[in-house]
Every structure is written in C-alpha cells, then in structure tokens.
C-alpha cells in the first residue's frame, strides 16, 4: 500500500487527518509555525478564550509529576475579540481548520462569545466547561448533567459553527455528561480535559503551584482518558475527539480504537515541538503497515475480551 486515507469528518467539517492541537498547549500557533508548516495539521484548537482578556493565575503555573504535569495557567488570554482581529488572519494562512476554545463564567458569556465568533471564520467551536483553573463557573458547569444539557442547549442557539463540548474527567460518570451534551445539541464531544491534582514541595511545605491545585495532563492520564473515550463511545452517536497523554501515533490509534474520530495532542508539544506532525506520521505508518486503507475503518473497533 502506498497511502491510506487519513481524512476524518467532525460534524461535517473535514479534517485532512485526525490530529488536532489540544487547546492551551499550542498558543495561537505562532510559535509552532516556526517549527513546521501548520497546514500539516488536521486542525488547530487555540488557547482557551474568554469574553474579556484575562491575566491568568500567579506563577509558578506548572509542576512536573510522574509521567505528567500539573498546570494552573488559569486561562490567560487576550479575549475573543483580540483573537478574531489579530490571530485568525494569521491562522487563515494555513490550510487547516481552526477551532476556537471558549470559556465563560456565566452561560451568557458563552453565548456572547458564540455570537462574536459567528462571522469570524473559525470552523468549529469547542466549549470548555471543564477548566479546573478558574474559580467561578469553570469546572462546575461540566460536572452536573443537567447543567451540561442546559448550557449546551443555550450556547448552541448562538452558534453558526458546529459545537464541540469539552468534558471534564473529574466526574463520577462521564457517560451521563456526554449524553447530556448530545441531548443538548452538541455536534461533538471532546475529552478529557485535565484531572484536578496537587503537588506539594516537602521542603518548603507549600504547594508547587501558586494556585495550590492544577490540572493533570500527559502520559500519566492516558489510561483514564482511553477508558472515558471508550465509555462515551458506547452511549453517544456524535463524534468524539479523544485526548489525554497522546505522545505518538500508537497512542493516537489507541484512542481511535476506543472510539475517537479525531485526537488532540497537548503536553507532548512541550517535550517535542514537532510532536503533532510525528503523531500524524505515526498514524500513517500504522495504517500502512497493517494495510488499512481508511482510518475511518478503525474508529471504535476495539474488540472486547
């Protein structure tokens, strides 16, 4: 076999390959554009946006943990309007899809942002209802099924683009949240956001993060993320974007077998700025060596024991 079809479709938006940058780990793409042609990506999901600019939390904002990191950036960003004016034109140079990741303190804020993004040219909107690093709202939206349903339904009204709901893993039953998102009208779900964690410096006796707690990501969380993707795949019909600890093509395939239509790569970008394109290449290699003509044929194809 010479080549395999890598195209996947997320609610009508075709991605040239299933690899997306995970929100908050890729800025607005500018830095990584110095390392490779961003057109090689399936889509770019940008840093989490809020209605108004935010400074984020005090530093230190990162702690290293076994096979993972904790972060407490706290959504530092220049606001959605600045994004539209200054970042979208830059991103539009590349032949890839743009996903705006939005966060709010109130449902109204989310709706307002969806409205503002209406004519912005972004291809998809990812609604982050699961950021553990902001005090008001934030994670709370993502941990109760009725709230997930309600916010999805409201925000959907203002969306021109397909709406992806990003789920929090800090819940008893992720299936319920995914179903609520689907019932509320979500076009896709993405998971997982970070798990709430803490690291204490035993010499200073203080938490390493100025914010005391932060979100855990990286390889450490992969088994939890794969399990959740698999669980969600069993209860929803909408596409799933899987993420959490993906470091290479094999990891991406694991998520796709579990039921993800596309995958996002986050923490890996910090270790290797070329991580995303290496994941693309790794997926292709897997397909070629197993004579799989179309990547879509493996989605959700894990065979249970």
């Amino acid at each position: 076999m010479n080549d395999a079809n890598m195209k996947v479709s997320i609610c009508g938006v075709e991605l040239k390959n299933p690899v997306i940058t995970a929100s908050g780990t890729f800025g607005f793409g500018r830095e990584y554009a110095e390392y490779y042609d961003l057109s090689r990506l399936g889509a770019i999901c940008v840093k989490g946006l809020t209605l108004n600019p935010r400074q984020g939390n005090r530093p230190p904002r990162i702690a290293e943990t076994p096979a993972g990191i904790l972060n407490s950036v706290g959504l530092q960003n220049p606001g959605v309007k600045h994004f539209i004016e200054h970042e979208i034109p830059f991103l539009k140079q590349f032949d890839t899809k743009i996903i705006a990741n939005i966060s709010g303190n109130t449902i109204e804020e989310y709706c307002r942002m969806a409205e503002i993004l209406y004519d912005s040219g972004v291809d998809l909107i990812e609604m982050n209802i699961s950021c553990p690093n902001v005090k008001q709202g934030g994670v709370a939206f993502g941990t109760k099924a009725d709230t997930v349903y309600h916010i999805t339904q409201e925000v959907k009204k203002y969306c021109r683009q397909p709406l992806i709901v990003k789920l929090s893993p800090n819940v008893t039953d992720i299936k319920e949240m995914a179903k609520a998102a689907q019932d509320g009208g979500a076009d896709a779900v993405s998971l997982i956001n970070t798990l709430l964690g803490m690291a204490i410096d035993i010499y200073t006796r203080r938490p390493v993060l100025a914010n005391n707690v932060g979100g855990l990501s990286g390889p450490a969380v992969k088994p939890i993320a794969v399990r959740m993707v698999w669980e969600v795949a069993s209860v929803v019909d909408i596409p799933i974007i899987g993420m959490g600890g993906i470091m290479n093509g094999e990891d991406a395939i694991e998520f796709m077998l579990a039921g993800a239509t596309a995958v996002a790569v986050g923490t890996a970008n910090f270790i290797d700025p070329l991580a995303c394109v290496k994941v693309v290449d790794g997926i292709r290699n897997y397909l070629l060596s197993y004579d799989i003509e179309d990547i879509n044929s493996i989605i959700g194809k894990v065979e249970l024991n």
Partner: protein
Amino acid sequence: MISIYKRPYLCTIVKKEETAPGIFDMTIISEEITRQAKPGQFLNIRCADTLSTLLRRPISICDIDKEKKEVRFVFQVKGEGTRLLANRSLGELLDVLGPLGTSFTVDNSFSRPALIGGGIGVFPLLFLANAYRSSMDVFLGFRTKEMVVLEQDFKRICPDTVIATDDGSYGVSGYVTRLLEENIKQGKNDIVYACGPEPMLKKVQSMCSAYGIPCQLSLEQRMGCGIGACLVCACKIRTPKAWEYKHVCKDGPVFWGNEVLFDE
C-alpha cells in the same frame, strides 16, 4: 511564510566536568546553535528520554566557540532532571531546543558595564562578558569557597573580576550587591546586567533605579514549552497603567530592570 524551520537539535556531548560539588560544566557541538546564540539566551534540554522527567530543563548558554561549533553550559544538580543530565556520557546525543529567549543588549557605546551574578546566575554572564570589547566590572557571588566556578574564565576577560562568598570563605565576604553599590555610587558604571536569585535581582533593580542607571535582569520561572506557547512561565511586566503577565521564555529571560515588577 517561513521556509527554514527551527527544530530540536541532537548534539554530541564532547566535554563534561564536575567543576564544583554538584556543578557540571558541559560542552556540546552544534553549528546551528553557535551560529544563532546571543548572550543571555538559554537552551531547553531534554535531560533524558524518560517519563520520570517529562519536561525539558532551561539552562543558560554559558559560552560558545563559533569555530569549534561548541556550546558550553554549566548547571547545578538540583533535582531529577539535572541529575540525569549530569549522568549523560561523552559522545551521547543531547536533545536541545534553542537558542531561546531574549538576550542581553550588547552595546559597545556603554563606557563601562557592570556584570553581577549570584550562584547559578553567574553562568550566562560569561558569554556576555565575552561579547564586550570594553572594560567592565564583574561581581560574582557564591555561597562558599568550594562553590566558586568560572573564576579563571572571567578573569581572562576581566582581570579585576571580584568574587564574593556569603560565608567569607573566599574573596570578599558578603553579598555581591554591596560591591556593586559602591561602584555605582561612584558613578563607575553606566549599565548593569544581573542574573541570580530573586532577592539579588530586586536589590539590583532598586539600586539602579535609585542611581538612575539602566539595568537588565535575567529572570527565572518554571517552564513548559520554553517557546512562548503554553503561557506557564509568567512574570509581571509593567504597563503604562499597571502590569501584565509576560513570559520568561519568549519575552525574557532578559528584561529591562524598570519593566520588571517583583511580588513582595
């Protein structure tokens, strides 16, 4: 659009020496890095290919040799990452991202710069000292005698380099900032470059502001990506009205002293 992309370099380790207890002086080969590097910039190093230390470690460029294509850096073993780096062997390939960040402003129109470094902060100053053709003052502070490193390297460039130790076991006794103060009180220097622990930087900042001398400070912060994308390495930078979070890895590590806002 950009045609030549940056990438992490795999650089052969050609020298490694423990020059003080837990302080390693390492040299790697990289034509690309020597070509691009400016004083004050840093490397982001994957200490070992392991999950135990996932993140790269920021380490300043201590010196370069363009002819030999050698990049030198000096680091202190602090935790697991630097321990693994110290365990790397000659001939092995090190995965290095860089040069990264802003650099010290090298301007030979300054009549007499002062370079002041404390602890691991002295390392990037060597590259800076090398970049100046003018005469200068160098003040280096260490905890104690056995931790003194790079003395000869600095003295080759600046014979009057003054060493201070906190415990007085070598050179002048006490903090280096006192030495700098005497100097600038006398109007000897027209620019100050500082790298070291935060209390030292604060002191330098306030002294320079008091005496109306420009200074550049090299900051430290825990990093994720090292290239400006993840926004974790925040530091407070003054704006006309208040302040905003800029990022040590991209907007820094070198900032003008009057820009930097330290927390109390």
